């Protein structure tokens, strides 16, 4: 019995959290699979795999995207930020610190995505009001918190980032 024909791999050059990687991936591989399975960056989660929940949110050249809804080859030449890239020299990023201080998480599954959505918001708007914050995380589903402490964390994060 013959094995199914292997799919030819394609080279991808991508910067992830400031580190340049050259990888060979199947063209059908999703970005989230490349991050988790090839680079072992398992902080980016797969929640629904249907473009709904936002657990797989990463920054692609600074813009929040759902990494389950993009092929890895499409990230060729791009800069990706995942949750692992937030901490610097053992110090939590101000957004991470805010989520801890405000108890903005319970099970934590959605948290990496929420923090990256928060980071994109604060990169464009350092004084977001409640409406801006709700709009920024409308694509991130949390089934534990009821969002109140997430919004509180986002307010803390805005203060932290401003103060930093």
């Amino acid at each position, binding site marked *: 019995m013959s094995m199914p024909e292997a799919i030819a791999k394609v080279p991808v050059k991508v910067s992830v959290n400031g580190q340049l990687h050259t990888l060979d991936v199947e063209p059908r591989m999703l970005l989230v699979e490349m991050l988790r399975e090839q680079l072992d960056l398992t902080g980016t989660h797969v929640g629904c795999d249907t473009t*709904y929940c936002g657990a797989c*949110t990463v920054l692609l050249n600074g*813009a929040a995207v759902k990494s389950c809804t993009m*092929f890895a080859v499409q990230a060729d030449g791009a800069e990706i930020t995942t949750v692992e890239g937030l901490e610097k020299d053992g110090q939590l990023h101000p957004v991470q610190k805010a989520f801890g201080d405000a108890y903005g998480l319970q099970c934590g599954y959605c948290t990496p995505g929420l923090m990256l959505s928060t980071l994109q*918001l604060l990169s464009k708007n350092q004084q977001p009001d409640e409406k801006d914050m709700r709009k920024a995380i409308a694509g991130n589903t949390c089934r534990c918190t009821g969002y109140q402490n997430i919004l509180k964390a986002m307010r803390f994060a805005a203060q932290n980032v401003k103060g930093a």
Partner: protein
Amino acid sequence: MLSQLGDDAKLLAGGQSLIPLMKLRFANPTHLVDLNFIDGSSGISEADGILRLGPLTRHAEIENSAVVARVPILHDCAGGIADVQVRNRGTIGGSLAEADPSGDWAVVLSTLATQVRCLGKDGERIVDLKDFIQDAYTTALAHDELVSEVVVKIPPKGSGGAYLAFKRAAPVYPTASAAVQLTMNGDVCKEVSIALGCVGLTAIKAEEAEAALRGQPISEKTLSATAEAARAAADPQSDMRGSADYKRRLIGALVRRAIDIAVRRARGEQVEASHVYA
């Protein structure tokens, strides 16, 4: 390239509809041609009252465009599609070429004078939007053609428009939507265009509803007649988003609310509107 790859090749724009469809095995293209690396395929420009949008222009870019803000109905649409992440990837050309019955752009653009430029190996042709969208998931594009530009005429002074889509949550398709673009002359509605979304195989132009409002003063009587005609024009199906009856009632309410906002905007008022969800 598409003619070489054969019938089962597909173009990939933002991928926010196509990739989910592929995961469900509703689409099984043998080849995908990624358009995202083509320089100059996105961007918004305006000259002589004509707005030109590159096919790969992301919803987020349209949402944040100062030029587009002059046509509020376009801003309503761009700023409300799904969520931030999807708006950062999804494109206007992809949305039109996909022709999903629940898509937003075809509804809004069918209330404006919109043309779609289609580019193939034999050159470019210009198709009116009403002829471009032919059926659910079916457009006038030939297999080896792509959308090269979306061209929209900016409405005259004294015009206002609004797009309202009702959704259960941000990332899902709307349950129903209504787009209203009108021109006022004092208290009388001089010209009006009304389109309904998610309640048929394509966006529905509610011509009898338009006729009920055109040339009439804005009053309770004309608003009721217009909403009633819009309800009658809707052809919804019962599904997990709601019963057909529910969607018809929703259409009536959305049309009335959209007219109210469009009239206020036509008078120069700044009114925020967009997709509505719980």
